[in-house]
């Protein structure tokens, strides 16, 4: 008998226990396998969909890829050789498109002549859709049915075609292209070499199929470096389509990681319970000569056996379930699933990671197993973890260190310190969980004792205390789930808040009307008529605050008091690019911080700045601001203004193009007087009516400004964002669901195992007069107390962690999931009761007498 056999005996002769453990572990393996099959099938279906539209081609390369390309030069033999020699290029094919860009010159507007050689990649081109037919031979052509119908020709007919600048040639129609492809109705397909011989020389472009579409950019860069005159079509559209599915990958990876962590913890808790139950048996083994290493080997062998069986079962269940679900017609992430794919490599990778996590998470219980003292054989009950002075010291040291770190990170706002604090909190929580749990159970017991005299209520916490090690295992699992959920939620909420902040900072009003050239082209932008603002504000739906901004005058400030933000330095003068624009200053002057407070007080050369501008550039009331035109060197275009008022910062006045300061402001009249600018470039409109966009568009159309302006609807952007957020929220909810299932599996397995070991004790309780119903309630209460206390402890820890996470992400405390945690705490006893329900019923159905004797 060797230790491997003993490990196998433990599993094979405790079938119920082994079965429950295997089910629990295989659940994780099934989820991992299924998620990989889902992802691969979606990716494959997406790829097929992309290929059906764009062909299995990654790049098009040529001097001339469209009519806009000026260099009308065919690819040379050397070009093709160079392209083929690139390591990431798998296949290359050529296209001859002789009249591209010569349509006008040769009057070739009606028909498109294209030539392909008989090579695999030819059939991947979007211009070749000829079914089972092959590429035509010399003097042959494939036409569309539409062409045949218009010209009253059919397969087998000979037709005369003009091949400018050459002569007419007679070619034979050998086939039709796909009649469903209307876009091919004017395409005439020839053999490339023959077409070159009668038209322009050399292929127009090359089609490149790469080893992986991920290397597109790298191949592009190599081509451009090789020959800068070559144009490369990266088929960006396909990238967008791939990215759509690619976005799922990080989400699925997060789920997989959560599954691996929770399953690892689940296995750890199961192992801990098992080791506790087997404490005396392990001690006997130590007594009869087993070394610590022997016991380590024994425990790891069990893990290995269970992992292998569970992985196999999980793999089969996961793949079968995924294939079954995918066999039904369905669309996911806008991709119609048309095929299934089993990615053995990534499944293997994840399952390997899974086994590794099981081994890593079982290190502690396995170490515990190997550390069992042989003297435990003589002890009637398994040793309880006592609160030794050493442990108290460790707890205090950890607590003090964590508190110091935590306070320091809040004071210094260092991201690294926040991360370190989070790590320390997690360490503190899991290292001290037994004692915290024991303390919490004692508190609960002391609260309940004077309130409820019923043995049902008082027994439950005491029983949990007695089996503190087993209780701890479940508490750890549940706590991990709650902590992971909370952190996931906090991250999501933080991202939501940041995204909404960005959205609101970009769009400070509900609707924003800007000239089309807004942005980088603003310098050349002439703006649009001020009439638009007047017309729009007449509408009932538009309300305060709304405002307009004239086209800005952009110049360099040449007398900066604070040169921190200076970007230009000519002849030792600190300069910064700034803009001045006109607006209705009323609302801002009313709450001016310093200086003049009404428009009437403003002198012709007065300018208004925001507090942020004053802080960043150092201007104060009465200071001169010298602005030099960037378009002209003449002194006549230099201006000097006086800071007349410093107003509070306002979202309408912020300008991210010129961060960290805002535009200088003046009245529209001043803008007209100084710069002859009357046009508007931006309108910011508030409206409680989400449908106001329609009215705004109508006004734009009525003024015939639809080609000059565009409208940004914050509501629509917000809705779009909310949709994306909800998608992520559903994924988080799904992950939580998985974690709840795994926790339930843990609760069920551990309670079943614990009750099995406690049958004698339960029988004694029944024999001394505890009613069946009372015992039933006691056991269920144990579950409820256990999950409630765990949830309570985990919630405190989660809240602490969330605070650090929020601060490290520079979020606000309003995102802390206090309500969610409260709901978790309130609902947690239900989870305990549900998890303990079946094992309790099973335990109470056992024969009392059998277990008493």
């Amino acid at each position, binding site marked *: *008998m*060797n*230790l491997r056999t*003993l490990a196998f*005996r*433990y599993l*094979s*002769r*405790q079938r119920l226990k082994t079965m429950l453990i295997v089910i629990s572990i295989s659940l994780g393996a099934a989820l991992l396998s299924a998620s990989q099959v889902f992802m691969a099938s979606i990716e494959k279906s997406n790829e097929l969909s992309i290929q059906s539209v764009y062909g299995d081609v990654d790049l098009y390369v040529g001097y001339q890829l469209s009519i806009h390309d000026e260099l009308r030069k065919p690819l040379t033999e050397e070009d093709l050789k160079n392209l083929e020699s690139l390591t990431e290029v798998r296949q290359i094919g050529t296209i001859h498109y002789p009249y591209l860009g010569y349509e006008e010159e040769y009057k070739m507007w009606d028909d498109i002549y294209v030539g392909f050689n008989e090579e695999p990649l030819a059939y991947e081109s979007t211009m070749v859709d000829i079914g089972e037919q092959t590429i035509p031979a010399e003097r042959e052509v494939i036409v569309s049915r539409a062409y045949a119908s218009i010209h009253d020709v059919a397969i087998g007919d000979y037709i005369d075609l003009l091949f400018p600048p050459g002569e007419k040639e007679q070619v034979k129609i050998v086939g039709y292209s796909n009649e469903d492809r209307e876009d091919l109705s004017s395409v005439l397909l020839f053999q490339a070499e023959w077409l070159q011989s009668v038209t322009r020389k050399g292929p127009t472009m090359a089609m490149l199929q790469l080893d992986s579409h991920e290397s597109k950019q790298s191949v592009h860069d190599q081509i451009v470096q090789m020959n800068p005159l070559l144009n490369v079509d990266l088929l960006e559209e396909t990238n967008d389509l791939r990215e759509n599915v690619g976005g799922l990958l990080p989400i699925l990876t997060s789920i997989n990681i959560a599954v691996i962590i929770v399953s690892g913890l689940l296995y750890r808790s199961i192992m801990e319970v098992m080791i506790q139950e087997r404490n*005396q*048996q392990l001690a*006997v*083994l*130590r*007594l*009869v*000569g*087993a*070394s*610590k290493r*022997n016991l380590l080997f024994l425990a790891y062998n069990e893990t290995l056996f269970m992992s292998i069986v569970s992985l196999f079962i999980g793999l089969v269940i996961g793949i079968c379930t995924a294939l079954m679900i995918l066999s039904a017609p369905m669309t996911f992430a806008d991709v119609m699933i048309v095929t299934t794919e089993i990615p053995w490599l990534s499944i293997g990778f994840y399952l390997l990671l899974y086994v590794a996590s099981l081994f890593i998470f079982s290190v502690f219980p396995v170490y515990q197993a190997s550390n069992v*003292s*042989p*003297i435990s*054989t*003589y002890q009637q009950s398994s040793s309880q973890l006592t609160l030794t002075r050493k442990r108290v010291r460790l707890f205090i040291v950890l607590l003090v260190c964590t508190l110091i770190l935590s306070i320091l990170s809040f004071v210094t706002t260092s991201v690294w310190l926040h991360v370190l604090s989070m790590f320390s909190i997690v360490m503190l929580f899991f290292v001290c969980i037994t004692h915290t749990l024991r303390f919490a159970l004692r508190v609960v017991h002391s609260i309940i004792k004077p309130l409820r005299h019923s043995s049902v209520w008082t027994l439950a916490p005491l029983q949990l205390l007695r089996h503190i090690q087993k209780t701890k295992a479940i508490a750890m699992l549940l706590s991990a789930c709650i902590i992971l959920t909370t952190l996931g939620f906090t991250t999501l909420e933080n991202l939501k808040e940041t995204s909404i902040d960005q959205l609101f900072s970009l769009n400070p009003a509900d609707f924003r009307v800007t000239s089309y050239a807004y942005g980088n082209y603003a310098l050349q932008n002439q703006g649009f008529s001020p009439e638009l603002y007047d017309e729009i504000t007449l509408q009932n739906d538009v309300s305060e605050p709304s405002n307009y901004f004239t086209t800005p005058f952009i110049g360099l400030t040449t007398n900066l008091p604070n040169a921190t933000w200076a970007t230009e330095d000519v002849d030792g003068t600190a300069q910064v690019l700034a803009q001045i624009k006109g607006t209705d200053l009323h609302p801002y002057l009313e709450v001016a911080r310093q200086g003049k407070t009404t428009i009437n007080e403003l002198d012709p050369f007065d300018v208004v700045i925001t507090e942020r501008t004053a802080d960043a550039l150092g201007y104060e009331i009465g200071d001169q601001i010298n602005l030099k035109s960037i378009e002209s060197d003449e002194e006549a275009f230099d201006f000097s203004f006086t800071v007349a008022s410093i107003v509070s910062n306002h979202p309408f006045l912020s300008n991210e193009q010129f961060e960290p300061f805002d535009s200088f402001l003046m009245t529209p009249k001043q803008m007209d007087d100084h710069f002859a600018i009357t046009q508007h470039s931006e309108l910011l409109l508030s409206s409680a009516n989400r449908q106001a966009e329609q009215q705004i568009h109508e006004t734009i159309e009525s003024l015939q400004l639809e080609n000059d302006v565009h409208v940004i609807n914050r509501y629509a952007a917000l809705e779009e964002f909310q949709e994306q957020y909800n998608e992520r929220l559903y994924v988080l909810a799904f992950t939580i669901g998985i974690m709840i299932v795994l926790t339930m599996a843990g609760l069920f397995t551990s309670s079943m195992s614990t009750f099995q070991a406690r049958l004698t004790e339960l029988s004694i309780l029944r024999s001394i007069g505890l009613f069946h119903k009372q015992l039933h309630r006691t056991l269920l209460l144990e579950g409820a107390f256990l999950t409630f206390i765990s949830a309570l402890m985990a919630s405190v820890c989660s809240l602490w962690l969330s605070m650090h996470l929020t601060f490290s992400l520079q979020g606000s405390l309003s995102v802390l999931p206090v309500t969610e945690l409260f709901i978790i705490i309130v609902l947690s006893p239900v989870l305990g009761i549900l998890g303990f329900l079946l094992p309790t019923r099973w335990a109470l159905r056992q024969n009392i007498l059998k277990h008493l004797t």
Partner: protein
Amino acid sequence: MVLLDVNGVSKIYSPRFYALNNLSVSFEEGSFTAIMGSSGSGKSTLLHLLAGLDKPTSGTITLKGNEITNFNDNQLTRLRNEEFGFVFQQFHLLPVLTALENVIIPTSFTKHRPSSKEITARAQTLLERLHIGHLAHVLPKKLSGGQQQRVAIARAMINKPSIVVADEPTGSLDSFTSSIVMKEFKDLHQFLGYTMIIVTHDPTVAAFADRVVIMNDGKLVSNLPFSTSQSMDQKVKTIHHTQLQNGQMVE
């Protein structure tokens, strides 16, 4: 020849509580010694120290001339595996193994392991000598208390130890089964010649030994060697008498 020698051993848990107080006792090779004493007299502590399960606060214990009190964990593990056989009150059989497998298990940890065939044959012989050979492939839960204890005895002897240590081996058995188990124990001792040390409360069990050591308050208060001519009844009476003399309650 002295096999195991305890010299001036003390085990102090607190300044007020001496589990063993400067105790000296030796065990001859091939002897059968019973250690008796009331609860808290220190007999279990002595047993733990003898088997290297615990370390004395002071004093030395030597086995075959080697001081074992300074052994490290690995040395002690090897010692327990090769030199000691253990029998417990609660049998402590592994529930997932059959009787035969339970007997064989200590051989899994020996350094120079004989062949599986040889071990199985040896285990089967031991079970047969204990009259449970027919139960070799039965799981412990299907065996009676007496049968389980016999399996445990066979397990203790499988590695041919120098010393078999039994802690209340009949504590979980009825008196009839106890006497049968003890007779078989004694037979095995005579047949195999191992040194045996048993801890017991029961004078009728102790009477199977060649010598009875009585302990009180961590000290050895009486050493009763028996001659082969003494009957079981005489031995029991002597033990009772000595216990009464030492102020110990007779059970």
